[in-house]
């Protein structure tokens, strides 16, 4: 399998930071806020690889830094230190050393993002079709008919009623909004997709259908995905490998089955025990 993403020693500290930040935070210290300078160590020393077509899970409680990892990789934030390499067909991209325009190109063309809150991923001032058009237009598709066709194709793939494609996503239910968001993320057929708590807040039957859709897309397009969730059911259903995070550190990583059946770290054991 071809490697698609390599993340090494990714760290993000909010605040000015001090030399004692790292040693005074983490699972052992039972906090992510440095008692000496008050900075928050959101993530520290996160490293992992992701291969083509693979789904990697990031799990952990609220504030453990799992969303921060994805935000940094999608250029929503800038990391404090660390490296990430994206192995594209055209060559390797050293993600944090690109200029703003190059980062934007990567974000618009090669990555897709689905946020927990559709308001972050969608523009509610324009139609659902327009949201997809926006991503295509960012990539220099300038043929109206083609954009229209492509938007229809994507929305029908994600099971949004085509008769409603010219309505604002604001008129839709939560589940439908997530479907539009997924269609938008898939518009450029990206090799890498970030899913940040996509099913949180949806009712169970809708959750199940969205998860099915995600699995189907992964099978069809061989898209690599990073799934952020605190829901162990989602982790079990979607992911092959997972990282368990606490206070910004990765405390356990490996095959999802192994982690869920035979957790090694005391925190993971508690997490799994509480859910099952």
């Amino acid at each position, binding site marked *: 399998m071809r490697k698609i993403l390599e993340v090494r020693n990714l760290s993000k500290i909010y605040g000015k930071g001090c030399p004692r930040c790292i040693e005074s935070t983490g699972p052992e210290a039972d906090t992510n806020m440095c008692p000496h300078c008050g900075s928050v160590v959101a993530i520290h020393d996160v490293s992992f690889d992701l291969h083509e077509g693979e789904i990697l899970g990031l799990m952990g409680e609220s504030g453990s830094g799992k969303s921060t990892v994805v935000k940094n990789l999608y250029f929503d934030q800038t990391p404090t230190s660390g490296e990430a390499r994206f192995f594209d067909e055209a060559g390797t991209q050293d993600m944090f050393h690109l200029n703003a325009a190059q980062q934007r190109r990567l974000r618009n063309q090669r990555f897709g993002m689905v946020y927990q809150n559709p308001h972050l991923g969608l*523009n509610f001032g324009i139609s659902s079709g*327009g949201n997809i*058009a*926006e991503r295509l*237009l960012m990539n220099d598709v300038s043929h*109206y008919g083609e954009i229209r066709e492509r938007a229809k194709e994507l929305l029908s793939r994600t099971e949004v009623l085509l008769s409603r494609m010219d309505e604002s996503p604001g008129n839709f239910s939560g589940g439908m909004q997530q479907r539009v968001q997924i269609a938008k993320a898939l518009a450029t057929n990206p090799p890498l997709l970030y899913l940040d708590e996509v099913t949180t807040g949806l009712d169970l039957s809708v959750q199940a259908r969205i998860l099915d859709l995600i699995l189907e897309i992964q099978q069809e397009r061989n898209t690599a995905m990073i799934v952020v969730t605190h829901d162990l059911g989602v982790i079990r259903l979607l992911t092959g490998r997972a990282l368990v995070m606490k206070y910004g550190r990765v405390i356990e990583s490996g095959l999802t089955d192994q982690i869920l059946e035979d957790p090694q770290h005391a925190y993971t054991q508690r997490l799994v025990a509480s859910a099952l």
Partner: protein
Amino acid sequence: MSAGYNFGFLDEHAKKEVRRAILKAISIPGYQVPYSSREMPMGRGFGTGGLQITLSLIGANDTLKVIDQGSDDSVNAVNLRQFIEMTCPGIDTTTRLSEATLIQSRHRIPETPLKPEQVLVLQVPYPDPLVVVEPSEDKRKIMHGEADYARLLVKLYEDIVKFDEITISHRYPTRINDHYVIDPSPIPRWDVPKLDNSPALILFGAGREKKIYAVPPHTKGEPLAFEDVPFRVEDFRDAQGKRRACARCGATDTFLDEFMNEDGSKRYQCSDSDYCDETLEADMMTEATTHA
């Protein structure tokens, strides 16, 4: 009468600053150059941006034409012309395009093609085309820098979805020299193609928003559109599909203004009054020669 002001009302330092902004604007076609925009003896929004450019460029040898919506006789044009005549002693003013070296215009580009030695100054209320999609000026600057105009095109997409055509009637976003998209001031669509490869320099001044930008001579100016939904100008066809003609001079190739007659019927007339007059005169000349 000089009224005790410096030539051109502005002091020399202010004029120099405006000229420097103009030079930068010409060097980076379509880029909005910030400048200080002095207080003028009229409200901002009444053409102070265009006026400051005109006053900074005008010299005693210049012949000035001032147009407001195509006409030399409407209030804005008359007042600006009188103000410039008062503060710039020695200059000539005209209503004839062919005689003018400097033309200040509000919302129209003259019908007769401009000449290389002419400079057209347009008054601009809203300089940034991105203001309709992005409220933060900081973000707009980044978007301009990266030529990120996808959201403007989404607006066009939404228009076609809703109305089957692009409904922007004026201020049509136009890409200059393959990079910056400008708001070409509220000129009608009819005038937008005149920006492309224009022989004359076209300057844009926004007084209230404190920006100057330019379309230098022979620069590409391309209205935003889709490959399969090309840009269109107004066609002025009546219900029978016949092109309306000017009620005064009979021209069928000009931008027409619509007037309401007293009986409620409509009347169409050239918006460019100078062009209309010249066509009428030329017709009378030919008539006179045929009769003689």
